[in-house]
């Protein structure tokens, strides 16, 4: 009786979230999946006829013309993946030492720092990216400083380059990398570091054999949380990237808003999702393997 009453209660409690995700997540996802195999309408929208060359186009063969191979979309996809990977690596390098430093601060300063790291969330992303635009532009803050210090003679061309995009994404993603990393570092058992040193391992050995494996869950968590939104990011390249900084997210945006090719945009979205899921799956299984046999 009690069990049955409990499961009824659980069902009532879970109903709102199930309903919400069903209507606002699964249903749109189903629509996108369906659209991705339909014929593009002339003025946007779709025609209800099966059409599989939306995917063919992504891999380089547009509209069933096998003779012409142009893997431009594949290149943009690969570029997006490499930008995202670079963002993960750079945020990790930035955040890892800082996480250690913060975890050693006193309670009060730690709170101050946590407030500072979440401060960007209180302001608009677009505004913050336009601030970067002002910093990076040829007559901007960065170039003015470099010129004044005599480090360069000609203003650096950073804005509207891949560098600017990666820089912007690193800036946006730092808090997402920092928080899981910090939580892992903060939970690190310091006495295990001492035990390792005590048993004759030097600092490098201790880092590789004890600190790194212990903080691996935080690293993996941060990497996944940074990687996924980075792959599909379109705001940062929109503001800071030129033609060479175009990412797959921009492409999707274009297909829906300017090119009005909804099925192609849907197919691109499905590909992004497939790639992200694959990366996620690999990282989860590898992390489990590392945890199980190391």
């Amino acid at each position, binding site marked *: 009786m009690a069990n049955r009453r409990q499961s009824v209660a659980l069902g009532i409690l879970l109903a709102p979230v199930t309903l919400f995700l069903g209507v606002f997540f699964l249903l749109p996802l189903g629509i996108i999946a369906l659209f991705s195999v339909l014929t593009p309408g002339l003025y946007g929208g779709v025609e209800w006829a099966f059409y599989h060359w939306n995917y063919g186009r992504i891999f380089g063969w547009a509209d069933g013309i096998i003779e012409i191979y142009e893997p431009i979309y594949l290149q943009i996809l690969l570029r997006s993946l490499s930008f995202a990977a670079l963002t993960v690596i750079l945020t990790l390098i930035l955040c890892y030492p800082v996480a250690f430093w913060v975890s050693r601060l006193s309670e009060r300063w730690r709170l101050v720092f946590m407030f500072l790291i979440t401060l960007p969330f209180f302001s608009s992303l677009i505004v913050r990216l336009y601030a970067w635009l002002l910093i990076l532009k040829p007559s901007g803050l960065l170039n003015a400083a470099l010129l004044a210090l005599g480090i360069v003679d000609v203003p650096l061309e950073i804005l509207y380059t891949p560098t600017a995009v990666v820089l912007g994404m690193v800036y946006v993603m730092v808090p997402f990398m920092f928080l899981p990393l910090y939580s892992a570092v903060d939970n690190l*058992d310091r006495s295990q570091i001492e*035990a390792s040193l*005590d048993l004759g391992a030097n600092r490098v050995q201790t880092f590789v054999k004890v600190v790194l494996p*212990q903080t691996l869950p935080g690293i993996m968590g941060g990497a996944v949380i940074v990687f996924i939104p980075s792959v599909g990011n379109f705001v940062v390249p929109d503001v800071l990237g030129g033609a060479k900084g175009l990412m797959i997210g921009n492409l999707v945006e274009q297909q829906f808003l300017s090119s009005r090719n909804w099925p192609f945009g849907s197919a691109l979205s499905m590909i992004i999702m497939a790639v992200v899921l694959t990366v996620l799956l690999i990282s989860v299984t590898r992390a489990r393997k590392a945890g199980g046999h190391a």
Partner: protein
Amino acid sequence: MAPLLEIREARRSFVTPEGGRLAALDGVNLDVGANEFVTLLGPSGCGKTTLLRAISGFESLDSGTMRLDGADLTALPPFRRPVNTVFQSYALFGHMSVARNVGYALEVAGVARATREAQVAEVLEKVGLAGMGARRPGQLSGGQRQRVALARSIIAKPRLLLLDEPLSALDRNLRQQMQLELKSLQHALGIAFIFVTHDQEEALTMSDRIVVMRSGQIEQIGTPREIYRHPRNRFVAEFIGETNLFPVTIDRVEGAEALARTAEGVEMRLPGKDRRPGEQVTAILRPADFTLGGAGIPGRVTRAVYLGSDLYLFVQPLAGGPEIRVIARDGAGFDEGAAVHLAHDPARVHVLEAA
């Protein structure tokens, strides 16, 4: 023969949150011989853990020297010291198997896998964990984890093993069993042990010598019997075991015995050697030093605590003064309110010169 470990005038102070300075080590001198079991004993904050951490290298000294086998230790980082530690929390590597935990010191020293595995098996056998190598620390009981920590710290055959209250997390029965096992293991290995505890019973059971510490200073160093029977001062007397302290004035000396009385008029007899009438001293008697009979200090039982084979009695002397704690055999009918006489052998009384 030169001692294995030689500590001279070790000093270390910390800044307290209030801005003052606290001397955790205040001029500590200590020698530890090879194959000796030395216990650092004292209340929390007495500096025993700081001393241990200074030996292992996790705490530096403000001044003083520390030599192991004649070689200066003070400048060496922890990983260069031929000293290993059993940590209070065990500090086992949760992401490694028991075998890899135990073999860690050999692994980082670059010992070949085959040799390593053989030694790991041997050490696991020694601590009673044969065949457990494949498990994770998380799958073990508290007592087993303790044994893994021990195995891990002895595999590299250190000259000196430091143990930081390693038994404090175990239940009473297991703790007593481990005490005996540690002692025999220490004998078998021929390694010097420095054992930190605040548990005086543990210290008495295991040690060759006990170092009693307070406020960063050593109060007394001696064998368990010396510390228990001949404490140097009130602190040591009160810290080690149950104690009755009697501030007395010597009445007269009769040959080998001296007669003394407290301010309230409780009369007792002490060893007469070196005593002079009128002198004020403190007489120390352990609860088990009294016999209940027809003669001796008259008193009344205020409380009787049943301990199994013994009774623990609180006796109020009729003359007044603090209650006397006495251990008596059970079954003799000493109920609360009973009138008793506490007799004692004068030779069992330990005398502190200061009153």
